[in-house]
């Protein structure tokens, strides 16, 4: 899969927080103007993911407080909303609980102990093979 297609090199980044501010295997909420971004760290694989903080099911600003985990053979990373446990893929932003919700996912990069989140969401169109887009990490 062509990585540059999903994460254009021109993506402007913004500083979110320091690595140590995010709990192991959990999330925090990052404020960017009036936007709320949920940022997650998976300690086992040292992977970072970011999504919008809003759970589309009941429109609650809560995903950053959800339990993270993985699903399926491929151990696809996910988060479960604390309100009604709707799960979302952190790769594709798709709802994994059988409903047609879609949340925005953002690229994340770590440099010198600082965590940066892309200002623009990753394109969510999925290619014909149905594979998930990979997140920069």
């Amino acid at each position, binding site marked *: 899969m062509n990585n540059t297609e999903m994460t254009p090199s021109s993506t402007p980044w913004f500083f979110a927080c320091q690595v140590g501010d995010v709990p192991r295997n959990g999330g925090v909420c990052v404020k960017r103007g009036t936007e709320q971004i949920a940022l997650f760290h998976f300690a086992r694989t040292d992977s970072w993911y970011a999504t919008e903080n809003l759970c589309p099911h009941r*429109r609650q600003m809560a995903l950053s407080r959800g*339990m993270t985990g993985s699903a399926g053979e491929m151990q696809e990373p996910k988060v479960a909303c604390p309100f009604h446990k709707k799960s979302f893929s952190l790769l594709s932003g798709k709802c994994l609980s059988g409903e047609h919700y879609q949340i925005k996912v953002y690229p994340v990069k770590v440099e010198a102990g600082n965590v940066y989140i892309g200002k623009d969401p990753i394109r969510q169109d999925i290619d014909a093979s149905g594979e998930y887009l990979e997140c920069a990490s």
Partner: protein
Amino acid sequence: MKKIIVIGNGMVGYKFCEKLVAKAVKGSYHMTVFGEESRPAYDRVHLTSYINGTSAAELTLASEAWYESHGIDLHLGDPARKIDRTAKTVVTEKGLELTYDILVMATGSAAMVPPIHGVEKTGVFVYRTIDDLDKIVGYAAGVKKAAVLGGGLLGLEAAKAMVDIGIEKTYVIEFAPKLMPRQLDDTGGAVLRSKLSALGLRVHTRKHTYQVLGKDRITGIQFVDESELSVDMLVISTGINARDELARDAGLPTGTRGGIVVDDTMRTEDPAIYAIGECAAHGGMIYGLVAPGYDMAEVAVTHIIMHHLDGEKKQRLFTGFDMSTKLKLIGVDVASFGDPFLTADKAQHVIYEDKVNGIYKRLNISLDGKYLLGGVMVGEASQYNNLLQYYKNNMLLPNALESLVFSEQKGDKPAGMGLEGLPDGALICSCEGVTKADICQAVNDGHESVDEIKKCTKAGTGCGGCVPMLKDLAAITLKAQGKAIHMEICEHFTYTRQQLYDLIKLEHLRAYDEVLEKHGKGDGCEVCKPVVSSLIASISNEMILRQNNDTAQDSNDRFLANIQKGGSYSVVPRIPGGEITPDKLLTIGTVAKKYNLYTKITGGQRIDMFGAHLSDLPLIWKELIDAGFESGHAYGKSLRTVKSCVGSTWCRFGLHDSVSFAIKIENRYKGLRTPHKIKSAVSGCIRECAEAQSKDFGIIATEKGWNLYVCGNGGSKPQHALLLAQDLDSDTCIRYIDRFLMYYIKTADPLTRTATWLNKLEGGIDYLRKVVVEDCLGKGLEWEAEMQAILEHYECEWKAAIEDPVIRKRFSHFVNAPEERDPTIEFVAMRDQKRVAEWQ
């Protein structure tokens, strides 16, 4: 290709088609079906539900497309009019003439109309088909009084329909001295009568109807004794007559009481003609139920197929059918099986009669006391399936006959026969003729759920009465295979909760990540994380947010508060036993006012404060803790409250000080993590003001001490707690609770309340009593010591949280703007307080 013509498209006619399609080699037969009615075969057993809105389409057994897809020519609204046995042809009303190799008569029956003057008048109906029902419903508008002629099975069904249509007064007229004379003995009939009368039906027995009154339209009926009853409508449902006229015209022999005479293979005198269902007379008997009809269809199909094969297979024969039946008449259970009428010279009787609740049961038992010969049940028939198996399989009865009469208690195994004891040939589904062996085979082939079993064996698709047995048989079969039904907690752990408990304890694991690394895979999920975290907390009782284990907690545990609509949290300090000082009440008032919180008294005798911002939680708790409060664990799967009545210190009835004991109990078990939340209560006397019998463990004062009740709960499926031990002193009572809770913690499935746990526990409350009171496992002292060790580790989680800067840091909404609250949380005013804005 052989040509088969089926005359009649009722339930049995359809069943014949279904079975032939399933069993015959494709392309070996061509079927043509003639039906008199304009719609394809429908479920006549549940005809009455048509009145309540079940559509004709829903009652249909198979659509016209089904017949078409199997190459069956279906001619509806075109009854056969003539059979020419020499030419082997059938001529229909519309003039079709077709030849056959095999002819199947499935013409069914018609309502029997007794010889009463004036039955042709407007407003007199029979109750047999959907068209009949349409006519009845059409006429019923404006009808205030209706009579049903016939107090048997069909008549009472029709009476139910009258009630459902909304007719003010419905009379049931029966010629015999009692209702359901073929199924019930005198007392059974009388009990049914009083139950139906209580439901508003007006029952008249010993009434011989003479004529229908009225000019052209019915105004009433007159009886032979010259009494009269004024009614606006009459529905006749006194029995059935076999539709044998076509066969008789063709010269086939018919029975003395009607019906086309058939042999054990369902063949008539003419080897090319079969008759099945209610039009057939087998051994002089006409069977007016659907199950024997289905059996006849099966026999005919196998005979037709084998007759044209040369194989020497064992022939399936129809040898009569058990007419046992169970049904619900207008909300009243009625069952009759075997020979219900056996007199004292032929059988011994076990009779139970409860006039208060209208329950009557009679069992006829062989003179040697060993076998069940028949019986009657009115008002309560939950044991019917069990009893029928004893009867049909000629099984030895247990010594404790009361277990056959009384319905089993929840959680108790039936004291009599288990399904394990049934022979393989026992018929489980009599509608479809499915045996125990068929069902076990289906389960062994991988059809493990009731739905799959239904699909593959058809068991449970008729009356549905055997569905609970299907479920139990599946469980028994799976157990025999060594398969547990809920084996793994989720995709990340191939262990049960009980196995993980042992692993965590033995290996001294203290964090979710350790457990995942050693025994699981992937990154875990929202199912296994809370389970494992709860186990770790149950075993070590360490403050749950330490050990890097905070993000493995369930969402509410992670922030030590319950998240509410909108994203704010609730604050619930512990108020043991519901006792609180005026000073503490003032503190709650002051804090709630300062942080603008909504306050409410809870069902568990404490005070909830709602609408706290995440970042305010540590500040709020700091003030509460300074005033002497502790966490109330309202967010945890742990002890919630121990409710109490005011007890002997104030109450003039109180036997002991229930408040002091409740406070002692609540302080003892506070912070204990359990598979699900647990609640308790202590009442000072049997008036039970604390509602202890609705709790996971409840205590009630007696003259001599305390009675301990366990495994009750409110919630969506309320269940009363059961008495575990009586007249205990306080220390023994606490020891038993220790053992009870440890046993529950160690063995329950995830998120299982004590009531559900007990329901699944083999041996039920009796076994639990053996474990806890009699210490049959020899674990009592060990568990008490374990509990003691857990409880000694108690610390207030909120005190620990606000004193630990690392933990405290997590209580902010924005990681990069910790001082700011979530701007999306909205409140609106309501009754002098606030509430959260509605979901968007």
